[in-house]
């Protein structure tokens, strides 16, 4: 990451948790700060009504000068005047991705790269064309492409779970899982992490056993189990499913272990937050530690009391809300990272967290 360049992912725990509202808030703030912005989405944002519930959604009103990467067919439904700079050879269900600049402010519908490798391409394009801060609007609960960002803002709220205490617990577990340190460079240098498979090593960094890249079935752990007593470290470059996570907790590793995971999404996507918490707690209790080869820090959380309530009698949804201040307080208390209500709070607090990353002026 070079000076004055940052790519930020806005992820959500579910639909309607406030990703777009957070994005709008940041766009407006950083435009006023005269920071060159890039905007894209890993889903479909800016539509007037929700694709599933049919309820109205906040629309993306994008200021002049912002660089936007979106699918070709979204240009027709955007009211902002966009001048197309380049079309990328990346297909989406709504046509190829186009890179454009907002010439006249207005509403923009964004449907950008929905795969990790494509977000990488888009990020490089936006940096090449002068973006200092790239905002990647998320989609539903999707996280995988966000590994290409420098950090996450997590939007959560009643739409994820109507029980605010449960929202708070999960926020705590997610913050905990994201905010482990990066792996030290000596392990990287020694080539322990280059095999592309899951490995365990013993003293002197000697690889003792290897298995598949992702740990999808408990049977794939057998080679590791056989050398558990000699192991001092484990590296998994792929997914770890719930059954494998539970099995890993049962393996009697003899000594204090260093767990190297590729990035937080590899355990966050397949597992419930409570199971991840249980796993990480067990590691900590054993005196072991976790590091990420590709860290993805969770910088802040935004909370949204809104949720779409299903009405059985009319077979549709209506807007509903949980108690706003209680939700924020519970999440802030549990997560131990900055928490904002982007509707009620101004954007200054959230922006200061981002600025504190040190990459922007």
């Amino acid at each position, binding site marked *: 990451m070079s000076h004055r360049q940052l790519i930020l992912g806005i992820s959500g725990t579910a*639909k309607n948790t406030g990703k777009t509202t957070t994005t709008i808030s940041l766009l407006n703030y950083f435009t006023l700060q005269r920071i060159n912005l890039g905007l894209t989405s890993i889903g*479909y944002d800016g539509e007037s009504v929700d*694709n599933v519930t049919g309820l109205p959604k906040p629309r993306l009103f994008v200021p002049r000068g912002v660089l936007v990467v979106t699918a070709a067919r979204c240009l027709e439904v955007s009211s902002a005047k966009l001048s197309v700079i380049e079309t990328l050879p990346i297909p989406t*269900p*709504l046509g190829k991705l186009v890179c454009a600049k907002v010439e006249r402010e207005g509403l923009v519908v964004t449907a950008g790269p*929905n795969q990790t490798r494509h977000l990488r391409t888009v990020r490089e394009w936006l940096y090449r064309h002068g973006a200092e801060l790239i905002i990647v609007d998320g989609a*539903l609960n999707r996280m995988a492409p966000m590994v290409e960002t420098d950090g996450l803002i997590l939007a959560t709220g009643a739409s994820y779970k109507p029980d605010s205490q449960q929202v708070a617990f999960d926020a705590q577990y997610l913050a905990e899982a994201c905010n482990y340190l990066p792996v030290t460079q000596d392990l990287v240098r020694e080539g322990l992490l280059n095999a592309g498979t899951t490995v365990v090593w013993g003293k002197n960094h000697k690889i003792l056993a290897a298995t598949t890249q992702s740990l*999808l*079935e408990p049977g794939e752990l057998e080679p590791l189990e056989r050398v558990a007593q000699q192991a001092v470290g484990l590296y998994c470059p*792929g997914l770890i499913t719930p059954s494998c996570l539970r099995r890993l907790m049962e393996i009697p590793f003899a000594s204090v272990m260093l767990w190297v995971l590729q990035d937080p999404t590899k355990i966050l996507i397949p597992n419930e937050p409570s199971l991840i918490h249980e796993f990480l707690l067990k590691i900590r209790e054993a005196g072991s530690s976790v590091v990420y080869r590709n860290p993805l820090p969770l910088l802040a959380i935004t909370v949204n009391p809104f949720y779409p309530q299903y009405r059985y009698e009319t077979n549709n949804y209506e807007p509903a809300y949980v108690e706003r201040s209680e939700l924020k307080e519970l999440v802030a208390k549990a997560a131990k990272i900055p928490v904002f209500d982007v509707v009620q709070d101004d954007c200054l607090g959230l922006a200061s967290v981002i600025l504190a990353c040190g990459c922007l002026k």
Partner: protein
Amino acid sequence: MNKQKIMLIPLDPVHDVGLKMVRRGLEEAGHETILLPPDLPVEEVIQEIAKSSVNTVLVSRTLGYGVAEILARFVDLLDAAGIRERVKVGIGGMAIRPELAAELGFDAGFGPGTTVEEAVAFVEDREYVEAKQRTIKHKTDFTIGYSYAYRHQGIKEKLDRITDMILTWAQGKTSPGVRRAEIRDELWDVHRWRDYEPMAKFEREYVKHSDEMVRNFYENGVLHSKTRRFSKEEVVGLEDYVARTIETMKVPQLSARAKPLVFNQYGTGCPFMDIGHIKVSEAWGADGVVHFDPSWGARTEGLLDGFLTHEEDGTVLTPANLNRIKRALEESTLWQIRAHRGLNTPETVVLAGKIGADLTKINICYGSLGAGTDPARLTVDAIAAIRFAVKYGMPFDVVTNEELCGVPAFKAFAGMLITAALGVRLGGKPILQPLFCKSPEVMVGGQMTDNYVEFNAAKIMALKEIVEAPIWPGAPVGFLTQTEDRVQSSASTAMHAVLASMLEVDAVTIASADEAYSGGPITVPSKIDTLRAVAEALRFYGHTTIAQTKQMEIWRDEIVTGIDKVLTDVVAKGDFVQALYDGVLGSREDGAYPGRSGRDTVVKQ
């Protein structure tokens, strides 16, 4: 195309029918498929994909709240497991749209109406070129193949004699309507008019045979009090609307059956709104549209010009209005302009022919007995109108709406057959248009107390027993059975259309669900109601036939006998026009009154 390996994944508990259809298409295209059992846990599915060497994954899933998150997590798992880079992922289901597929992270989304070919194209990395349905649908001249041969010799002989009688009577007679039609035919060049060239000679001659309102328009620019010209902004708006609509227009077939063709009426008074209605009719599968003009137009000698909107029912017949409507029509849409009832009958046929209509409507008896035009005048005018219809290659229907006045079907049919026989004699292609609805005759006589089927069927059977000619029931079918309840109206219209289909007629005209009760212009949703209902009913019954009942045969025979008797009376009268005045083809007791409009305007040439 290289052989592809595709995994088909029904993430639903049961809904894998769509995937099975796609699998058949893929296997027919030479690809290898693996169909997973329904409703496996997402993690297990990921394991299956990871273990396989598939190139493409196709998922089907019905959407509900919470399901979007499951699908998004599925895509995320593929991505995080490193599978996404080597596997294309598509999703199909009832609520799936490309926008939602993008949001969920899929490469493609297949919603309702997706063809198997579309899914195969996705697998093969080909751009799917949607079949251009507009080029598939063609205009049909449904009069082709009819011999107009009579099966009932007695009726044929009488019709021949009446035709002779009419032509002899009309010899050497003309009217202002016929003169205007001749002037329109000779002096009004549609190409020059379209190029805004002046038509001074035409206008000079034309106004000599027009009444004051029309003269005032051509000489002083004064419009009819209930009309106005469109503003420049409105015209620009219309042109933009038409261009945008035509660009995205698809013209589906309403049913797989070759007939009956389905016609929709329009005539809101506003040609802009009419064009909107026409585009909706076309988009929902109507094969043709019928232009309705205002009732005062039938009582006025002469036609106006200009792009005019009218504040009441019926869209004014002007060259500009018709020309705008013509330009908005799809190539496959049949277009009928009614000319049947008033003082502009022959001229309307000429104008319709020059602007490019496909069909017109002419009937001496209905126009004389149910629409207010003098019988002598309309007889002279109808002969000219038929000759112009022949010249411009337009078949015409012979409507029997005098039934709506209370004239019994056999009398109305006798009148229809007289105009049709005259049409054939003059080289035309008449289409029989019996009323197919709950007419006053049956309300009084009780023929539809039990069902609407048998008497309507008997009417068609009677006509088929008399002559081999095209039949186009109307207008609209089911009239007077519909209420302000749109569901009831649509259902009734659909059932009448199906009955007509089972009786193997050539076309039907259908109304919108709110046609009789809109209290103003009909609405687009109710137009769609009936088109959808008719399409669904025709699909449901397909080529199912209807059994002929004893009661149908009894009523058929009564109608045929009645027609024969009426024709015998006309022959006995020795004067068709006098027979109209005297009530032979519909009397005052029946509810038919010889019209007065245009009385004493027939003159010697």
